[in-house]
């Protein structure tokens, strides 16, 4: 029976202390907010510290407002607006209209850093992991020693791996910057930062490398070398990836030409226009989806692929039947005729669709990016690389494993013998040209994602495509593959030293010199067939 009053007393005490705490917090906030009225940097600084110390829930909102120039102070009080523009009284947190006479509270860079650090430690315990992540990063950058308890507290509770990692780095950064901390702790902290391996880490380590001595300095310098090494490797990986990405675009553009020019020997100057037609098919399909079935818009790209193949392929067959078949064995005349066709096709598209660029939007599954081995890879580029390789494999399969492919190879190797064996050479010619053109159309679907869909789209690729096919060796698909990726990567390696345009010029000159050395490309066909 005696414990009841005791319990009551305890409860009372708890409630009282809680109230006291809350009011102390509110009072702290009130007092801190008052400091903003002075609008002098030293008072504002005190205000920021006060708001941070108050632990009040609207403290975060006030400091964020201050950072975003949404905090106003004047004789009537201190007010802030939220991002939507709704006004609040800073001291009470209740909605209010911001009076006209309240002026914006100004900040300088030092104060801005202070606010960020304060916000960092205040939001370390926020329920939103993204906010905690940002807060930890802010602490890492500010290395504010006063935030250490908050970081420790947050670390004890943190379960999300990413946030935990940043928090640990932040703690390490703080310990490293505290010159009074024990040497062993600072060495461990330096090692922890070196593990992070990014630019911020290297900046911190460099800063302390000069100030420190003995074992600590050795650890820090070791960390710096390790990070620099890793960054160099990463830069190389990135160059290679960009090169592969460019190479896949080159391959995609050239692969159809590898059939029409490489296998058939037709100098197809209208190849670029086949790519362009594919891109316009994509545009038309997307417009149809947009107007008739907007919810399926993401599917318009996959559906465009077969349609682009058919459209470009049919145009290609028409060109072969109508013009090129009269010109076999006269490669230079073919060049002129197909150049004429390319002009007509360009003008036709310009007449129908207008000369301006057409917008082809990316489906949602191609948007965004992810991080792999420390480099950003956009899904769009990745899809194009994958798509290119799939198209290449499919083409290889058609040539090597289907009756049509067999006949194509037979006709190109020995037309009369093939004809004697009962192959309809005319039909095979048309099909081969159609296949090459269709593949170009498919390339247009992919290129519509990374280039402007305009009547000049094909022009930009035709010369590069010829270079790729000639470099790889006419009549050799694998050669085309190797050539495209070699040129792509070489281009990206040269770019940082020479700039984009000069890099391209260098590649062209190197290519011209290479042709001198190996006049028939990387992988030349051997035997009598090469002497026409």
């Amino acid at each position, binding site marked *: 029976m005696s414990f009841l009053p005791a319990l009551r007393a305890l409860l009372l005490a708890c409630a009282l202390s809680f109230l006291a705490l809350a009011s102390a917090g509110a009072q702290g906030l009130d007092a801190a907010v008052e400091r903003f009225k002075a609008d002098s940097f030293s008072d504002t600084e005190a205000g920021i510290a006060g708001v941070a110390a108050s632990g009040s829930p609207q403290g975060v909102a006030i400091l964020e407002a201050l950072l975003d120039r949404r905090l106003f102070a004047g004789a009537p009080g201190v007010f802030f607006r939220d991002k939507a523009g709704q006004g609040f009284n800073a001291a009470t947190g209740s909605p209010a209209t911001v009076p006209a006479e309240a002026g914006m509270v100004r900040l300088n860079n030092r104060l801005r850093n202070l606010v960020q650090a304060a916000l960092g430690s205040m939001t370390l315990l926020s329920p939103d992991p993204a906010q905690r992540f940002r807060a930890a990063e802010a602490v890492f950058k500010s290395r504010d020693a006063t935030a250490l308890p908050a970081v420790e507290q947050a670390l004890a509770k943190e379960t999300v791996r990413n946030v935990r990692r940043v928090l640990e780095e932040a703690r390490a950064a703080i310990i490293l910057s505290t010159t009074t901390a024990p040497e062993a702790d600072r060495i461990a902290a330096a090692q922890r930062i070196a593990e992070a391996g990014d630019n911020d880490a290297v900046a911190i380590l460099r800063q302390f490398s000069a100030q420190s001595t003995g074992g600590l300095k050795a650890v820090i310098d070791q960390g710096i070398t390790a990070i620099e090494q890793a960054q160099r490797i990463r830069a190389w990986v990135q160059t290679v990836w960009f090169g592969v990405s460019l190479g896949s675009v080159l391959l995609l553009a050239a692969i159809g030409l590898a059939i029409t020019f490489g296998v058939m020997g037709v100098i197809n100057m209208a190849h670029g226009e086949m790519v362009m037609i594919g891109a316009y098919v994509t545009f038309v399909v997307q417009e149809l989806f947009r107007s008739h079935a907007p919810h399926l818009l993401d599917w318009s790209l996959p559906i465009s692929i077969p349609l682009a193949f058919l459209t470009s392929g049919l145009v290609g067959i028409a060109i072969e039947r109508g013009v090129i078949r009269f*010109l076999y064995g006269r490669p230079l005349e073919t060049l002129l005729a197909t150049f004429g066709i390319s*002009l007509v096709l360009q*003008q036709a598209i310009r007449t129908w669709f207008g000369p301006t660029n057409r917008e082809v939007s990316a489906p949602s599954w191609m948007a965004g990016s992810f991080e792999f081995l420390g480099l950003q890879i956009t899904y769009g580029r990745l899809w194009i690389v994958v798509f290119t390789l799939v198209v290449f494999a499919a083409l290889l399969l058609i040539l090597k494993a289907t009756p049509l492919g067999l006949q194509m190879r037979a006709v190109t190797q020995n037309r009369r013998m093939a004809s004697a064996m009962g192959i309809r050479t005319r039909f095979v010619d048309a099909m081969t040209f159609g296949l090459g053109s269709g593949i170009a159309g498919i390339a247009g679907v992919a290129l519509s994602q990374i280039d402007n869909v305009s009547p000049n789209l094909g022009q930009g690729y035709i010369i590069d495509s010829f270079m790729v096919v000639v470099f790889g060796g006419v009549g050799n698909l694998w050669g085309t593959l190797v050539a495209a990726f070699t040129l792509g990567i070489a281009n990206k390696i040269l770019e940082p030293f020479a700039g984009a345009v000069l890099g391209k010029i260098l590649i062209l000159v190197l290519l011209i*010199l290479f042709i001198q050395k190996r*006049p028939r490309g990387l992988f030349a066909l051997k035997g009598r067939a090469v002497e026409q």
Partner: protein
Amino acid sequence: MITMRLVKLMEGRGLIFLAILAALAVLVPVCNLLVPPGSAFHISNGTVVLLGKYLCYAMLAVALDLVWGYCGILSLGHGAFFALGGYAMGMYLMRQIGTRGVYGNPILPDFMVFLNYKELPITWWGFQHFPYAMLMVVLVPGILAFVFGWLTFRSRVTGVYLSIITQAMTYALWLSFFRNDMGFGGNNGLTDFKDILGYNVQAQSTRASLFVVTCIALMLTFIAARLIVASTYGKVLVAIRDAESRTRFIGYRVEHHKLLVWVVSAMMAGVAGALYVPQVGIINPSEFHPANSIEAVVWVAIGGRGTLVGAALGAVVVNYLKTIFTTGWLAAYWLFALGGLFVLVTLVMPKGIIGVWEDVKARLRERKAIAAGRAGAAAEGKP
């Protein structure tokens, strides 16, 4: 004696061509300068410039026909030699501006002042002297052609591969001349010329003189080309065109023969470009564009490959059509017409306009011979 031989070498149509050019060289300036503007025989200033432009293109076409028509080297980069010659001339004209530029710098052209050049780049030295500039007009394309040809022909790059790398050459130059760092005016090229040899380039008399000079240059180019193809050397070129390996096996140094004609042709193209620039008043990197070179090939194909006269004719005809089509409501159809023309010419008249004309003549002669034969037979059967 020599004149008689020359006349014989020119063939019938060559003589007609030269006569037409000579007549143009006299009539156009007279009708432009002396005949009053109201008269039906007056030739307007714009027309003189236009005709001069056509003749420069004709010169480029003759140069191209020399290598393509007679030696089988299909160059998709002849526009590069044309443009280089043009740039050499443009640089001379730029230096002549002197203090009359916007910035009034006596040494540096305006664009260099604008790009903060402190002194004249070494590539521009000497271009204020006309003879030096004229030397460069032939030397620069000639040296480029020599280096390119020496490498290429020696490694026996032929046919399609050769065409593609000539295209790569002009493409690389096109990209280079767009760069401001090259020191050739970048994207804008060279323009705002004031005078040539002390005469105002805008003045009508200068323009008429330039036209006459172009006529004479084209005549000389044609005669030179004709002399080359009619010589023993020219016969070897034709042999190389028709069977390169066989010619080599017989014992000719194919690459030397090719190299010589290639360099000569490039120099001719350079001269054409140099005459083109003062008449048009501008030279910019777009002249290097690969499509320009292909277009030049098309002039030759349309006129008649391997005839020289046909090449010049093709250049004039196509460019005249272009002038008609690109002004007024027909503009939208120009590319249809040009593209259609390419296809039609390659399919229906592979020997070009001259080829069609020859066919018609041959058929007429045949008909006459048949008729004569019939008459003869009838006369014999009578007694």
